[in-house]
């Protein structure tokens, strides 16, 4: 038997009585305060014990009587542990587990964002019904046409010639269930650019056609890159990745705090750029592996990238640094290397 000072809060109010607590070997405790005429005998079995945590006082709920709080100490912990068994507290005090956590937490987070989430995103992209994809794409196109895209100013005959050529190119591609719908739009805002919507709509800007001087080989290598985006369902994957990453971040670190919002913002930016860059590489390699099939060389892709790189160099610096494409030089190198391998 040993004694401790405790604070006893009788149920039903904010009163507190200082008590002497007698803790008996048999798992019985007795609360005594003579001046308050208090003497309670209680079996520990019937009490609810709040799990041990750090060095905060140990709390016991006495059924229908009140709450008892006693400063934490080893002797008391041992006495209480007799009835509660294993505890998470032991893990929180284990030096090796703490050390392991410090190493494992970053590793696991890295693995989660680098592999698990992109993998889950592929599954998600496959699961989205085509009708939904089509609705989403048309909505996006409408929004873009209202804001940054204007009707093309390219000569109608030239457009038709390109279209006819691309029909033969597409016919040479491996069969696919996607319908590609190629459009030309004028956009001073986007500059020399091309993008693909998930339903197979591919938009070239007049500025890109001008930059490539209507060179079919160069334009086709960009087309193949965009087809790569569509074939791999990149838009849907990006959406899924961003969504899951956002939820995961707020879930793991989400004890609301303005600092965390900042942290989340930064990691989202990095993550999204990372995701996007991975997707760009995939689209590049798709284009590179199909160029020969349509009777073109990888040199065309490298040339297209070189021209774009020069153009970006001229553009305002703000524009270029906010782009998410991988390093142009690396992409050109990648194209040339693929070229050499084939020879």
């Amino acid at each position, binding site marked *: 038997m040993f004694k401790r000072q405790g604070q006893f809060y009788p*149920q039903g109010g904010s009163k507190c009585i200082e008590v002497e607590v007698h803790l008996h070997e048999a798992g019985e405790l007795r609360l005594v305060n003579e001046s308050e005429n208090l003497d309670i005998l209680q079996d520990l079995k019937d009490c609810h014990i709040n799990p041990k945590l750090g060095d905060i006082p140990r709390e016991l709920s006495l059924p229908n009587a009140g709450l008892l709080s006693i400063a934490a100490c080893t002797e008391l912990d041992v006495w209480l542990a007799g009835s509660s068994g294993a505890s998470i507290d032991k893990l929180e005090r284990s030096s090796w587990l703490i050390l392991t956590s410090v190493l*494992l*937490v970053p590793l696991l987070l890295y693995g989660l964002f680098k592999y698990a989430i992109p993998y889950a995103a592929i599954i998600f992209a496959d699961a989205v019904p085509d009708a939904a994809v089509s609705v989403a794409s048309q909505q996006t196109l409408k929004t873009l046409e209202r804001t940054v895209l204007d009707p093309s100013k390219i000569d109608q005959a030239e457009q038709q010639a390109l279209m006819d050529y691309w029909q033969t190119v597409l016919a040479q591609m491996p069969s696919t269930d996607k319908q590609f719908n190629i459009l030309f739009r004028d956009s001073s805002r986007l500059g020399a650019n091309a993008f693909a919507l998930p339903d197979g709509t591919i938009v070239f800007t007049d500025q890109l056609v001008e930059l490539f001087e209507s060179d079919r080989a160069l334009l086709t290598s960009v087309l193949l890159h965009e087809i790569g985006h569509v074939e791999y369902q990149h838009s849907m994957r990006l959406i899924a990745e961003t969504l899951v990453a956002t939820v995961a971040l707020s879930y793991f670190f989400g004890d609301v705090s303005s600092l965390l919002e900042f942290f989340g913002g930064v990691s989202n930016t990095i993550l999204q750029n990372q995701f996007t860059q991975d997707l760009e590489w995939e689209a590049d390699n798709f284009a590179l592996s199909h160029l020969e099939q349509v009777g073109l060389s990888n040199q065309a892709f490298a040339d297209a990238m070189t021209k774009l790189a020069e153009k970006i160099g001229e553009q305002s610096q703000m524009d270029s640094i906010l782009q998410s494409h991988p390093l142009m030089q690396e992409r050109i190198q990648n194209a040339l290397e693929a070229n050499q391998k084939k020879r």
Partner: protein
Amino acid sequence: MSNMDESIPDYKHYSLAELLEAKSTIDKEAFPERLAIIEQCIAQFDTHSAAQQNASENAPPAKALRSVPVRFLGNGREFFNIWIVNLLLTIATLGIYSAWATVRNNRYLYSNVEIDGHRMSYLATPKQILIGRAIGVLLFASYYVLSVLSPLLSGLLLLLLFALTPMLVCMSIRFRMRMTGYRNVRFGFTVRYGRAFVVFVLYTLLALITFGILYPLLFKKIDEFIYENMTYGDAEFETDLSTGEYFLATIAAGVIAGVVIALLFGVSIGAGAAAFSSADDAKPISQFFIIGMLLLYMIALAISSSFYKALIRNHIFTNTQIRNVARFDSKVSVMGLIYLRLTNLALLVCTLGFGMPWIKVRSARFFARATTVEVLPGYEEVIASAEESANAIGDEVSSVFDVDVAIG
């Protein structure tokens, strides 16, 4: 004048203020027996006033028994161990354990707050947290997916959420209050949906219509709504906030934010122009640039929001009391808070997030130190129904409405 000696004024029907005035002005030598009656009446008033809550407006402020500091007793190292192990378990279980982790983290932070020799307690159960999280994630995910598929439907959902905001906010506040205990009594929140609708929807619209000029009024109405409806057992909170203070704090914070952003932006553009002179090098720098911009933005936000937070916290604390239980005082210094926020930000960035436990502990200690509580005579007489007793085992008490829907 002549009958003054004979007729004794009807002190029994005097108000307390009148009695006190009579006591101080009466000629004590000449009318000792009247003085006795007055004192008797005052004494009766004192015992009555404890029971009659309406009388408190006329009654002078209750005399504080003692003024006590708020102390935070946790330490960063101990909290780090708890936090990191729980984080590992959370990740290893793909997030499911996070509800248990939240409870342990919060229990540590709450139970290390000591006021007048007693600890605060965090009373939520993991199950309650889990349900709230699940609903929150579901809502967020469905909104995100809808926003991609159909702007119209997502707009409707957003509108629905806006209309439901008052209810969700009330539930959230109620949950947080009910999960906080002190001296075995739970805090609480009296939900008034009608009033919540007026505050969160109508005043928000009003603020929007007036191009934001009335935002300070909205902030004041929100705080007033929260603090007026808080309870501690059967004791109610009273608050008396001034709209002027909110206008002052908001305008000052806005001006400071503008100045800081202008200064930082000027510096960063100069640095940016110098750094990105060659296009080839631009890519690897781009991420740093974006992070840099975010950091600058955060610094500006930290400085201006510290100003607002310090002013408004001090204002709310000094003007809020739990009737006959406690009065509060807060002396947060603006410079101290800016220093805390900026060092926390540096700590977070330099440790890549691993400094979070120290940040929480430092912040808790800072706000505890700035706070004093005046203990009023009724502090031991707060009554808590079976539901309001903190020791009642969670599951039996928690109703389905005790859910904190975690949005965003």
